[in-house]
């Protein structure tokens, strides 16, 4: 196949043509600064407001509770650090999970260095948060629970409703990193008792460099980026108008297509999982079989280096990943796979395939064929596999 097969939509997605089209005028003729007073700029203010409304509606949230940021990581940093600062007088304890994105984990480490205590709750072998542990971890000084909506590596969806209830009963704020879930799952911040929610445009066919943080009215969070009075004095900096417009358009399309797209992707994903697990020996699916994002499949193959598999897939024009895309593009054993109990050597060798609305059955079949070939070849060169086969034939 000469065409590239892109199966890394959890890393980033292609911006939809309609989104690009909606953004373009805001680079050219409608370049005004929304804060200016003349009529010319008010169109920009209106465009920003429309995007905010679209996103608020998508979450059943108040329009004024949506704050635009530069993306998921900024939203996560802001939610955690500003909550810690604002509520330090109540207590200095935060609860999160062991399988959060690094935007959460590293921010927690930063807070730990600054006098806060963080409890990292375990997950079970499917990656689902242990609710009994969460309940036990709560202290009078707990000010925040931050649990991701769905995991970026293994796709497992957390029991967000239950977590929201536990937080509410104990009068603790609840933040969720919904970077992977927003645009793929229905989210109602009121029904789920969510106080803060992070999302990022480029994960749902919007542009990069734009995202938002939902902050429920009444929270005392202060500004994270200091400067002008934009975003109700809570996020300084001239609005990224084209980005915001693109984000709004992408959200609009994502919501309109959510059910149908989810069903289509889930059907292809199930076919992918079925074929891999039946046709490739010593393969396992990571994450919960049913409670997972419709576009996510994550496998481990024993006896091979995940890195070699990825490179060889790349040589066949198949874009896949091991889990999370980080700066260097190099693999450390995944903290998520270690947390669900995989041994070190298997946590090194995983393969994540994440689909989009453009993924076809032909692409999935071709990809499985290639994975089969490559895994067989790598195993034929693997002393570990040789030993295993020898010992098990004896």
């Amino acid at each position, binding site marked *: 196949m000469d065409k590239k097969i892109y199966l890394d939509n959890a890393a980033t997605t292609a911006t939809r043509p309609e989104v690009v089209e909606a953004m373009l005028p805001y680079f050219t003729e409608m370049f005004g600064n929304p804060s200016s007073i003349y009529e010319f700029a008010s169109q920009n203010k209106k465009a920003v407001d429309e995007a905010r409304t679209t996103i608020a509606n998508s979450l059943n949230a108040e329009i004024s509770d949506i704050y635009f940021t530069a993306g998921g990581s900024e939203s996560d940093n802001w939610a955690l650090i500003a909550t810690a600062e604002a509520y330090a007088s109540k207590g200095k304890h935060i609860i999160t999970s062991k399988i959060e994105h690094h935007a959460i984990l590293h921010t927690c480490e930063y807070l730990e260095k600054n006098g806060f205590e963080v409890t990292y709750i375990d997950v079970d072998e499917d990656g689902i948060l242990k609710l009994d542990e969460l309940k036990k971890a709560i202290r009078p000084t707990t000010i925040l629970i931050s649990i991701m909506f769905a995991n970026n590596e293994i796709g497992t969806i957390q029991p967000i409703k239950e977590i929201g209830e536990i937080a509410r009963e104990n009068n603790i704020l609840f933040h969720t990193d919904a970077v992977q879930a927003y645009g793929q799952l229905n989210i109602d911040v009121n029904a789920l008792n969510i106080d803060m929610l992070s999302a990022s445009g480029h994960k749902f066919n919007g542009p990069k460099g734009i995202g938002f943080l939902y902050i429920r009215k009444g929270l005392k969070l202060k500004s994270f980026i200091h400067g002008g009075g934009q975003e109700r004095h809570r996020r300084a900096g001239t609005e990224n108008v084209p980005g915001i417009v693109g984000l709004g358009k992408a959200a609009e399309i994502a919501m309109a297509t959510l059910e149908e797209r989810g069903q289509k992707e889930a059907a292809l994903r199930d076919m992918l999982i079925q074929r891999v697990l039946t046709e490739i020996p010593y393969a396992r699916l990571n994450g919960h079989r049913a409670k997972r994002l419709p576009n996510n499949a994550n496998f481990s193959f024993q006896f091979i280096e995940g890195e*070699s598999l990825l490179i060889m897939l790349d040589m066949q024009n198949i874009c896949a990943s091991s889990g999370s895309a980080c*700066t*260097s*593009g*190099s693999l450390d054993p995944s903290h998520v796979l270690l947390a669900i109990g995989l041994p070190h050597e298997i946590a*090194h060798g995983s393969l994540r395939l994440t689909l989009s609305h453009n993924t076809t059955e032909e692409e999935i079949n071709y990809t499985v064929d290639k994975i089969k070939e490559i895994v067989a070849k790598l195993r034929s*060169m693997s002393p570990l596999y040789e030993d295993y086969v020898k010992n098990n034939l004896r």
Partner: protein
Amino acid sequence: MEKKKVVVGMSGGVDSSVAAYLLKKAGYDVIGVTMQIWQDEDAAAQEESGGCCGLSAVDDARRVANALEIPYYVMNFKREFKGSVMDYFAEEYLKGNTPNPCIACNRYVKWESLLKRSLDIGAEYIATGHYARVVRLENGRYTLMKSATAAKDQTYALYNLTQYQLAHTLMPVGEYTKDEIREIAKDINLRIANKPDSQEICFIPDKDYAKFITEYTGEEVKEGNFVTPEGKVIGKHKGIIHYTVGQRKGLNLAMGHPVFVLAIRPDTNEVVIGNADEVYSNKLYAGNLNFMSIEDLEGEMVVDAKIRYSHKGSKCTIRKVGEDKVECVFEEPQRAITPGQAVVFYDGDYVVGGGTILRDE
């Protein structure tokens, strides 16, 4: 016919970048790879010079690979590097030896793990920017030949490679002088053409080996006695990991004349001190042998031996005195023969083999 695939270990520095360029020009299907081996985030934030495998190495190497239009990947060898290089380095120091971690990295990380993974992805060779030449001799064996510029020669750190490893290795830079390599880099507009050479041990950027070993192993380093060769106690030392054979500075001993470390005795936690002339010796024993140009050493052989990276080499006679032990007798006494360092034997420009210098028994 399909082009032969070669994986070039790229540091973003001038040598490996030009190596990739030369191989591409020679018609190979070149894949650039940077090995990720030890960084943690704090180190990345502090990083200044980079070394061969730092995070800035990744950025630089990727830029070069883009310029050369070759595919580029980062491969993670942190586990292998920790096991084969960092653990080994710390253990040897605790035993009172002075190891050379670059040799271990070459043998076990670059030419074992990187080679394995390169063969896995369909390559036939790995290549590096080392100043050395891989040659095949009339007896059918592969060996290394010193680089065209003696001053830059890096065969010392590569003496431990096996025949299999050498058969799958290309070192295109060895044919050129450093100036020629810099010139080529300039001609092809590589931005890194003036990057300084890396020298130090990459995982100890602050060069404080003792601090690294205490933090890395968690071992408590005990003070002990400075003694004369006759066993007379002449002072207190800070712990054996702070010393290396031949060392003069930092001993804090007022003897009225310059004194040097002659030996380190881990069993009794003693550091032996003596005069300048006592640092010289004309004999050493080496183990962990690897022969290159010959299959094994039979009888006696007169060779030039290098006892450390910066040593010029000195004439000596070698013979085996055990299954894995060579005795090496120099014509002239050598300064500071240091257990743990490698001794490498040369026949003219060719590597005969080498081993690790053993402590006197």
